[in-house]
């Protein structure tokens, strides 16, 4: 390997080659993503159990979710996954300005997602469509059971939202490192790893959205 290539890739002490470091880091992140799928899997299971037990309640309650806002969020997240890929692509081509731009755009999308979420939650709070003992909405039919749907809604979107926030933090850190000049065609591993995490956040939403908003 050429000398200047070695200098650009910060090889950790315990790895023999950059290849080993890249492969290990990617494997580690994939394993972590597997754990996240199982974490959400528990909630998806709870959703299935209750939807099966209370089909009428679920059908009615989900109409109180704004499909337009949900669809907006879906598009925003899909787009942000694209921008993350573009950032990696730019790094591979040593186009650091585009790396910074695309990472920034990803973060903006993530923030936009949270803003839309805020409006959705605000509407629910206002309407009393809340989980458990906080449920106060009077217009919905079978109000004593509808809280189950909203409980699951808030749990699933809430946990997802926490992951979006963590993603913003992660991507911001990567953005700052990109601005500092840490990355180039020889080394863009952290962007890839963060990108993988961000794709997972996106994928989970792709499953959440139809289950919560679209099921007829």
């Amino acid at each position: 390997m050429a000398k200047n290539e070695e200098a650009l890739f910060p090889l950790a002490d315990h790895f023999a080659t950059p290849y080993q470091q890249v492969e290990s880091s990617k494997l580690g992140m994939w394993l972590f993503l597997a754990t996240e799928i199982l974490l959400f899997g528990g909630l998806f299971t709870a959703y299935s159990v209750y939807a099966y037990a209370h089909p009428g309640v679920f059908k009615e309650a989900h109409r109180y979710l704004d499909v337009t806002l949900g669809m907006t969020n879906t598009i925003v997240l899909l787009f942000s996954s694209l921008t993350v890929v573009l950032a990696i692509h730019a790094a591979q081509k040593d186009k650091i300005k585009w790396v910074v731009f695309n990472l920034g755009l990803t973060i903006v999308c993530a923030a936009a997602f949270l803003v839309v979420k805020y409006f959705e939650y605000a509407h629910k709070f206002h309407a009393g469509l809340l989980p458990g003992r906080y449920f106060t909405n009077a217009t919905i039919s079978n109000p004593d059971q509808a809280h189950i749907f909203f409980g699951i809604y808030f749990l699933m979107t809430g946990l997802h939202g926490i992951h979006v926030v963590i993603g913003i933090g992660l991507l911001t850190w990567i953005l700052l490192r990109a601005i500092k000049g840490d990355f180039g065609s020889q080394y863009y591993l952290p962007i890839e790893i963060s990108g993988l995490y961000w794709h997972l956040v996106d994928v989970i939403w792709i499953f959440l959205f139809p289950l919560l908003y679209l099921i007829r």
Partner: protein
Amino acid sequence: MTIYENKPSYLNEQKGLTSWLFTLDHKRIGIMYLASIFFFFIVGGIFALLLRTELLTPGKTFLEAKSYNQFFTLHGTIMVFLVIIPGIPASLGNFVLPLQLGAKDVAFPRLNLMSYYIYVFGSLLAVFSIFLGAIDTGWTFYAPYSLQTQEKVVMMVTAAFILGFSSIFTGINFISTIHKLRAPGMNWFKMPLFVWGIYATSIIQVMATPVLGITLALIVVERLIKIGIFDPTLGGDPILFQHFFWFYSHPAVYIMILPGMAIISELITTFSQKKIFGYRLIAFSSIAIAIISFLVWGHHMFVSGQSALIGMIFSALTFLVAIPSGIKVFNWVATLYKGSISFATPMLYALSFLFLFTIGGLTGVFLAVLSVDVHLHDTYFVVAHFHYVMVGGTFMAFLGGVYYWWPKMFGKMYDERIGQLGAWLVFLGFNLTFFVQFYLGSQGMPRRYYNYLQQFQTLHVISTMGAYLLGLGFLVVLINWIHALFYGKVAPANPFHATTLEWTHASSPPIAHNFVRQPIVTEEPYCYGDEPHHIHGLAHKGA
């Protein structure tokens, strides 16, 4: 300190408290885990002795009912989440795995250190919660009781949640290490069986623990905002909790036993100087156990109100998971055949394991039989069964492993005679404590009982006497180790003439980077017969 040797090693190459607290060295992290785990073992053990003392008489001996209920909960919670699940992987796994693979460290050393601090934080939170209002739900936190009781459930459950992350990160670290950091020439079937066992364990840690995470989070949410997922008065399903909980907690028991079995493979080969019998079968059995372990959780719920059909499916799958364990036991015994068998302290623990784990495993078969389980479920028979596998199995292997790798970890030997004394006391005390509990359970004595019917007293007294003897045995082991730390004789690089890389290519204790030169592997892991076996030291250069 006299703990440190004169020659350079990972123990003395950097000195001072901060060099330990901020270390990235897997060996130091392993040692810190070892000390913490044994500390919490003592805490959990004290609760056990208090329980057994209360059980000397059918009525109140010296505890109130609520205190008794809190103590058995804490004994279980501490032993499961703070001791046995991190147990072997975090301590011996961390220390030995990179050495056996011929690697400098694990794949993610900083993650490793973070895992340790997460463990410490979670453990301290758990202990702290005891002082604020110790939970009394049993370590299984069944709803609706866990949703109603007034004690500090949220805090303890949060502590367990945090500890789960430590487990997950360790698993991710080990899988990545095994896949990517093996020495050149070490293909999968040249790995020692200890590595296979740790690998299978890590798969379970990564796949199962998140489900516990979400289950515990749901308990917290249910308690705090009454979301109505497990509470029947709010439309929830308490049996759903059991499904979620056991989906993790059954694989968790294989997180406990697989590393123990992994150690036994090492001990059996080294102390008989023989190739392992059926290497591939043992390796595949570990993976088979890991996979099947995810399919049997319902056998904890045969009488829970789940349908009989589901019970049947789980019973059948449970019998299936028994087969790989049986294969391993027979293979280990066959390994000893025509070997050169030493009865050094680590081997005494390995032999103990074979004896006790067989009993534990066979009594598990009783519980897999549907009609018999109806009678034995939630009785002392179950308590005896799981102590035989967790203590008689995993913990014996753990002690054997610590004794085995002791010279590698500290460069010193322990007093062999005290080691043997400790092993015998533990073996005898253990059997005395728990064998009679099979009787108690069969006779109909339920578990988690503060008071009991008069006719059970004799057996309870015997069990308590056994518990004190067992405690004494553990004390002897502890004294043995502390004495060895300060006064142990200098150990050679390979005192037991083993053939795995940590013995043949690393000094005792190893240098910070483990190996002077990257070892290159050409032979199978237990190559005892190929030529007269020398004591391999640093003089042996890898090919």
